[in-house]
């Protein structure tokens, strides 16, 4: 579905490359987490995928087509919910559909169905300031779902939430993913979160990024919290943390 082919990228103000000949694939319907130390270039990878940045060398392909000529193939959900404070929750989640010039009736129908699905029906006429952090992230995810894209780029969406809300939203996200069969790329600092959510983890282990170290998670879906206590999972978690620590020291 998504293919990076020898992608090299450097910010104008930097002396060294951020990405150097990076190649990787993402298959349709996969849930992949990308972990790595702060500032290692994870978010740059997302900005390249959604076309906000252009690589100096190499190609990024979506369903075999270069993304340069494409629009609205990926939906981005950042750490901050970025809900527009002057729009009600219903209007906020309708944003992408409005841009795609869908009919008013269609927008209303889809928005209402989605509000019910994400449990925000009673808040449809409220403004973002009236919602809790968890609700706002759910609204933000609903907006991402309604963008109609099949590739989701989630950039640390739960990192600003308290631990209980974070846990319940992780479980909720998995249910939604299984239901909608979207492809998800998920950036996180939290190794446990990455293991619980994803099928595969890509670890950023060098700078500039030349490759991702790939780890498969040996857990079937649907997943339960108790699975995280399995000895092989605990071992994997310890190993990943050790890896990241070494990088931090380097």
């Amino acid at each position, binding site marked *: 579905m998504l293919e990076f082919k020898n992608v090299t990228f450097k910010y104008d103000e930097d002396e060294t490359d951020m990405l150097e000949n990076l190649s990787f694939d993402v298959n349709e319907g996969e849930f992949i987490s990308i972990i790595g130390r702060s500032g290692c270039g994870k978010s740059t990878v997302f900005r390249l995928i959604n076309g906000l940045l252009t690589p100096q060398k190499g190609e990024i392909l979506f369903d075999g087509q270069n993304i340069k000529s494409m629009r609205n193939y990926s939906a981005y959900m950042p750490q901050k919910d*970025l809900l527009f*404070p002057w729009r009600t929750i219903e209007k906020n989640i309708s*944003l992408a559909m409005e841009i795609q010039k869908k009919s008013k009736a269609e927008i209303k129908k889809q928005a209402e169905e989605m509000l019910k699905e994400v449990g925000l029906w009673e808040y449809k006429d409220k403004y973002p*300031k009236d919602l809790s952090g968890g609700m706002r992230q759910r609204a933000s995810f609903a907006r991402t779902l309604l963008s109609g894209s099949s590739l989701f780029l989630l950039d640390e969406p739960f990192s600003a939430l308290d631990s209980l809300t974070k846990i319940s939203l992780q479980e909720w996200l998995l249910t939604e993913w299984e239901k909608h069969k979207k492809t998800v790329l998920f950036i996180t600092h939290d190794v446990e979160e990455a293991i619980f959510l994803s099928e595969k983890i890509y670890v950023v282990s060098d700078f500039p990024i030349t490759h991702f170290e790939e780890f498969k998670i040996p857990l079937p879906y649907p997943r339960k919290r108790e699975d995280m206590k399995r000895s092989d999972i605990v071992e994997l978690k310890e190993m990943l943390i050790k890896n990241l620590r070494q990088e931090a020291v380097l």
Partner: protein
Amino acid sequence: MRKNIPAFALITTILVLWQIIAILLDAPYILPSPTQIAAKLWELRETLFLVQLPATMGVTFMGLGISVAFGLGLAVAMDCSEKLANALYPVIVASQTIPTTAIAPLFVLWFGYSIWSKVLVTVLMTFFPITIAVFDGLKSTSREMEELLITYGASKKDIFFKLKVPQSLPHFFSAIKMAVPLSIIGAAIAEWLGAQSGLGYFSKRMMTQLDGAGVFAPIVLLSAVAMLIVAIINIIEKKLLGWRKEI
């Protein structure tokens, strides 16, 4: 309401002191007392409210309307083109260093006693805050929100109407609230310098007759009207920008 009590107390104290000083001074052609001004307002109510006030308001609203249209146009144009912004911004700022009261007689020379000489003074005084505030509002757009819209495939028009306009509305309202009193001051100054009607003109006429209360009465009326218009704008702002509460 309770938070307004100190302000009311202060105003009452000033009015009482003013009244006492005016009585002690006993020179109403220099310092008329508040009660004398109120009496004058009542005495001249017909000409003040039915003749002079509509004339001044005509200038004020025409000037304000042109300023809003001109200011918004300039702000949007500067937001669209960085080159234009670099060329215009310093010129707009420099235009504010022109002493309006000194240049206004020139407008009378150009346009005579017609409404346009006065409208021009008003425009010169009010387009600046509107242009700069709206331009700053458009520029303060969240980069992250703009990028989010781009990832949804938004065009420049979408970004303008769905993000920039709503985000700069609070700036626009602040600018209008600043511009209303300025436009009234502009209209009154212009009328002082050359006019055949209006509250500024009337105040000047009273001056030549050494009628202190007659000078003050139109000024009090101007202030009251300015406060009323700002209050109406406040109500509209609260209705339109309800989402800002408690932020």
